[in-house]
């Protein structure tokens, strides 16, 4: 009797799969020797249950809901580990249903359990929701890669046994199949891991986590370049001569200098002039030394690229800037100068500020690039320094419009919205990237387009000059990042590996690495020389919009579209801590020059200043991962008047420049 049933089930299976010859063969064989085989009862049961499971998509629904309720009622200690299993099972159940053509059932299944995972995986769910036919599975990169790869889940031994026991006991073949096929358990002996540790498990990425871990094992030399200007300054500061003091005195007119002096003066509590002045100069000199000390603690590495030679007078001006740098800390917050774009008619896509803050560039959706010379604006009203311009700008602007002259330089050449612009370190070149898939190099001295770099196949989202100039990196919708040099129209390196658009790119301080942020929610670090991916940073839950590298080269900050900022330790590839506070997209991030502060600008119309010294120094001393000790703090929130902050830039003297568009709608 049982035999017959098995036979039926087998035949039904063969029919269904269209194995006609097998079916015939089987029948023939049965006819030849009717009472031959004696089947193992266990196997028979399997076959029967398999037949049952085959016959309905409802199996998935039932199986998953049973597994879910079992997980929720499991022991508290192991619950969070078992809960992690649910999400991949859920996703694969859904995709299996779609793949088998049960669109209707797939949708109902999806909707009934969707809420469980919305908190953690909203964006993934939104993507998956659109999948409605088997062909979509093939077409959609995300779904495709999910089906190809296995998810790694760390689980303690006991949880693992619990799960297996449950699956065998309840005969839920479907669930077992999915778990076997798509989940790779890393069974660890001992106690279950802590809940806070599962940040990595949150994100399902296409490539297997093994690969990511393997990549993160690679060696990375995050140190600073040998023979940098800071280093030279430190050497020179030992020889701080009288001439320099005199120089300091000569600069009485410099407001910034004066202000800084008043700060120093205030600290020391002295207010008498002539004699003390020299002392003050002395203290600033000391400050400069102490701050460079922190940077010189970083190891030195040799440059992998041949670096451009800097003109001697430029070098001197930079050294001068470094000497006059205001030291920032949680106690000494920076001054922030804000450039507001008005009357943009929703057309401004990006803004960029030169290193000295004197030039501001805006990329517009009408393909134009406009550059404002803020220092010139000030000069017309007879104030030559950067400080003085702020009071005079409004009047200058009205005067400019009366003249019928534009207050800016217009660069036209792109054939699509300009998505990014970057100034060379000396401010003599601008690079702009556009949706017409080109990058253009402009000269601010000649006010003309010099080169058009073609190489990307899709819109170029971001372009960044290297810290030393000459080289630049770009990132594009075509999922690659490329390294270029100004003198070649072909890219030098192509970095491929991201699973979605590469949205932003940033150079490491030593120019040997670039970091890229992508819509696949990962940040990757690439070796410029070899073009290899050397780190994958997993943890963001949305697309990465901004990146910043700490000046000592040890840390990286990344901001995403949810308003989360993450600090990463480059050497370990781990997230130091997430910085929560922004409520909307983090458009821009900037480290202060000595690395003690991080500034972030967001679509929620605020500039936030974060104290990063606590975090960066604590692990260096103790090197432990205890969460509370190195928690980063938000120091200050600066609200703008309904102006989302598009870009931030610390000048070499640690004055913070920021820019944004006045938008009345918010």
């Amino acid at each position, binding site marked *: 009797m049982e035999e017959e049933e098995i036979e039926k089930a087998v035949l039904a299976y063969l029919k269904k799969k269209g194995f006609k010859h097998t079916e015939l063969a089987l029948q023939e064989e049965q006819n030849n020797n009717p009472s031959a085989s004696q089947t193992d009862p266990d196997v028979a049961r399997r076959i029967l249950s398999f037949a049952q499971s085959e016959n309905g998509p409802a199996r998935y629904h039932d199986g998953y809901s049973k597994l879910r309720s079992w997980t929720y009622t499991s022991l508290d200690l192991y619950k969070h580990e078992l809960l992690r299993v649910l999400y991949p099972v859920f996703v694969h159940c859904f995709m299996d249903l779609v793949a088998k053509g049960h*669109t*209707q059932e797939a*949708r*109902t299944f999806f909707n009934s359990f969707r809420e469980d995972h919305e908190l953690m995986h909203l964006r993934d769910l939104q*993507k998956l929701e*659109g999948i*409605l*036919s088997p062909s*979509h599975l093939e077409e959609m990169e995300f779904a495709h890669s999910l089906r190809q790869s296995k998810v790694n889940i760390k689980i303690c031994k006991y949880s693992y046994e619990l799960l297996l026991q449950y699956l065998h006991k309840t005969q839920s073949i479907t669930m077992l199949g999915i778990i076997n096929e798509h989940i790779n358990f890393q069974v660890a002996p001992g106690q279950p891991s802590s809940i806070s540790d599962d940040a990595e498990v949150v994100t399902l990425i296409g490539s297997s986590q093994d690969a990511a871990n393997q990549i993160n094992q690679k060696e990375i030399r995050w140190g600073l370049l040998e023979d940098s200007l800071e280093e030279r300054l430190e050497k020179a500061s030992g020889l701080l001569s009288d001439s320099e003091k005199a120089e300091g005195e000569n600069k009485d007119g410099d407001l910034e200098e004066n202000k800084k002096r008043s700060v120093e003066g205030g600290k020391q509590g002295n207010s008498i002039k002539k004699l003390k002045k020299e002392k003050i100069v002395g203290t600033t000199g000391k400050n400069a030394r102490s701050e460079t000390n922190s940077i010189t603690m970083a190891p030195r590495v040799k440059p992998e690229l041949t670096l451009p030679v800097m003109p001697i007078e430029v070098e001197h001006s930079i050294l001068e800037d470094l000497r006059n740098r205001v030291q920032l800390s*949680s106690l*000494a*917050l920076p*001054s*922030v*100068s*804000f*450039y*507001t*774009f*008005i*009357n*943009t008619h*929703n*057309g*401004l*896509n*990006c803004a960029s500020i030169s290193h000295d803050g004197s030039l*501001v560039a*805006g990329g*517009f*959706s009408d393909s134009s690039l406009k550059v404002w010379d*803020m220092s010139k604006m000030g000069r017309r009203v007879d104030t030559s320094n950067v400080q003085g311009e*702020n009071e005079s*700008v*409004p009047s200058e*602007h009205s005067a400019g*419009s009366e003249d019928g002259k534009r207050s*800016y330089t217009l660069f036209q050449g792109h054939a699509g919205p300009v*998505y990014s612009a970057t100034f060379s370190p000396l401010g003599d070149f601008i690079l702009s990237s556009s*949706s017409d898939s080109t990058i253009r190099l402009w000269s601010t001295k000649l006010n003309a387009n010099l080169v058009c770099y073609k190489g990307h196949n*899709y*819109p170029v*989202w971001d372009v960044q000059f290297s810290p030393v100039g000459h080289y630049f990196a770009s990132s594009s919708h075509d999922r690659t990042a490329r390294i270029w040099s100004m003198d070649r129209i072909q890219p030098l390196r192509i970095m491929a590996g991201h699973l979605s658009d590469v949205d932003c790119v940033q150079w490491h301080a030593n120019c040997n690495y670039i970091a890229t942020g992508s819509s696949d929610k990962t940040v990757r670090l690439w070796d410029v020389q070899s073009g290899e991916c050397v780190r994958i940073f997993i943890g963001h839950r949305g*697309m990465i*919009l901004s990146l910043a590298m700490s000046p000592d080269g040890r840390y990286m900050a990344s901001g995403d*579209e949810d308003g989360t900022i993450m600090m990463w330790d480059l050497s370990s590839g781990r997230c130091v801590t997430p910085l929560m506070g922004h409520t909307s997209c983090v458009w821009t991030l900037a480290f202060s020059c000595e690395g003690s502060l991080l500034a972030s600008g967001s*679509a929620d*119309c605020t*500039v936030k200043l974060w104290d990063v010294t*606590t975090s960066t120094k604590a692990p260096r001393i103790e090197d432990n991962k205890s969460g509370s000790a190195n928690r980063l*703090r938000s*120091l*200050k929130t600066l*609200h*703008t*008047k*309904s102006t*989302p902050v*598009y870009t931030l830039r610390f000048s070499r003297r640690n004055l913070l420049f920021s820019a944004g568009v006045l938008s009345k*709608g918010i």
Partner: protein
Amino acid sequence: MSIVPKETIEVIAQSIGINNLSSDVALALAPDVEYRVREIMQEAIKCMRHSKRTVLTTDDVDSALNLRNVEPIYGFASGDPLRFKRAVGHKDLFYIDDKDVEFKDVIEAPLPKAPLDTAVVAHWLAIEGVQPAIPENAPVEALVAPPESKKTEHSKEDGIPVDIKLPVKHVLSRELQLYFDKITELIVSQSDSVIFKEALVSLATDSGLHPLVPYFTFFIADEVTRSLNDLPLLFALMRVVRSLLQNPHIHIEPYLHQLMPPIFTCLVAKKLGRRFVDNHWELRDFTANLVASICKKFGHTYHNLQTRVTKTLVNAFLEPSKAMTQHYGGIQGLAALGPSVVRLMILPNVEPYLQLLEPEMQLEKQKNEMKRHEAWRVYGALLHAAGQCLYDRLKLFPGLLSPPARSVWRTNARVINTMPSKRKLSNDPSSQQPLHKKQIVEGSLGPISLPADLQGSSADSFPAASGESGPSSSSGQVLNEVVSGNNNRRERGDGRAPKASAVLSQAWKEDVDAGHLLASLFELFGEAIFSFAPSVATSFFL
């Protein structure tokens, strides 16, 4: 099952001319349509992010279509995000409100203004971490105060010495609250007490009152609208306003726009106070001066303040349908703004206005004594205003009148002596005066019989005028002037017409313009106007 039902596919198919679409095809297409739409939206969101926006626009969708090598959809381009409206009766059905535009209207519409060019302005968002209170920065009040001071305590627990400067929370201290309650109580209940006077002084001088300004502003506006019948209260409120304006420590500009309406109410309202006996004229006079002082104080910061005030007042003055009381308020307000305003705004309208006013003032035509009284009041105000203006003009040419004026200063007795000489002086040119002019002057005097009431009112207004000409003068001087003025009046009582024409021609000789002004004013007001002319003499030595 997809969000796009197969019916939608069928409808779309029909709309492009495919009538016999099989339901299988529609069923198969529906999920694919949804997938494509989602795909496009995903790309569009990327474009939106890279344009640094948080609102999706049609441009983003177009760029997304471009990315997928699909022809963009034309006809929806707009700089602003589309405004969707909810369809009535549906929970999640939206549409774009697309109004029919008349072609004619588009053609005939004036050319739109050219959009302003993009510009960059700079300001300090923060100076050493502290946000300066400048208009470019978000106002401090608008910020949400952090919940209590827990944050600061928390940071102290960390053992890191940080001074976190919290945004100023708009909280009134207990003392300020008590102060406010006390003042408002005084205003409402005992506005004639000595304490109230002290309170006014305190309001005008105390430095810590700024946080209360919005509350006072609201209180004043509220009370004025509520108790238009309560004259003492209104008066008290206006005094409070004056005190607040005087206070040098208060930054009252932001609240000016809230203060002006109640002030105007007290100036040009139709009915103030309950009974006839309430002297609402006094309140109007007081308020007029208040308005003038506001214009003077804030006119340079708000350059359109005075024009707006003047416009309102001229409206009150020239609208024939408005009550006499409102006219009075308008005239007084304009007069307080200064002689030049009077010359520009009132004098051109005096003649037609007087024609309107005349029947109201005559016993035969206006039986209601109340109305007649009001009309005379307005007449008095008008006279005063015009006189002020004249006085101002004549003040420019004091040369002629200086010798007699000095003598007035020296001794009171000499006034009588100098006056005849003055008359003598003016008698000579009077011969040159065309004769018919004199006749007209005298003729115009005829119909307007001057009752004692007018004499009284003009007499009232005269000391006020001289007081204004020299607010710093001691009371003795004012008395002196009054005496001299009265002397003059007495003089004139004798002199009458010959003297009138004499002074008139004197001014004529001095300056054609001023003379003309005086002449025309004389035509309109008769001799009452002369009470202002001699005060030139008194003003000179002040």
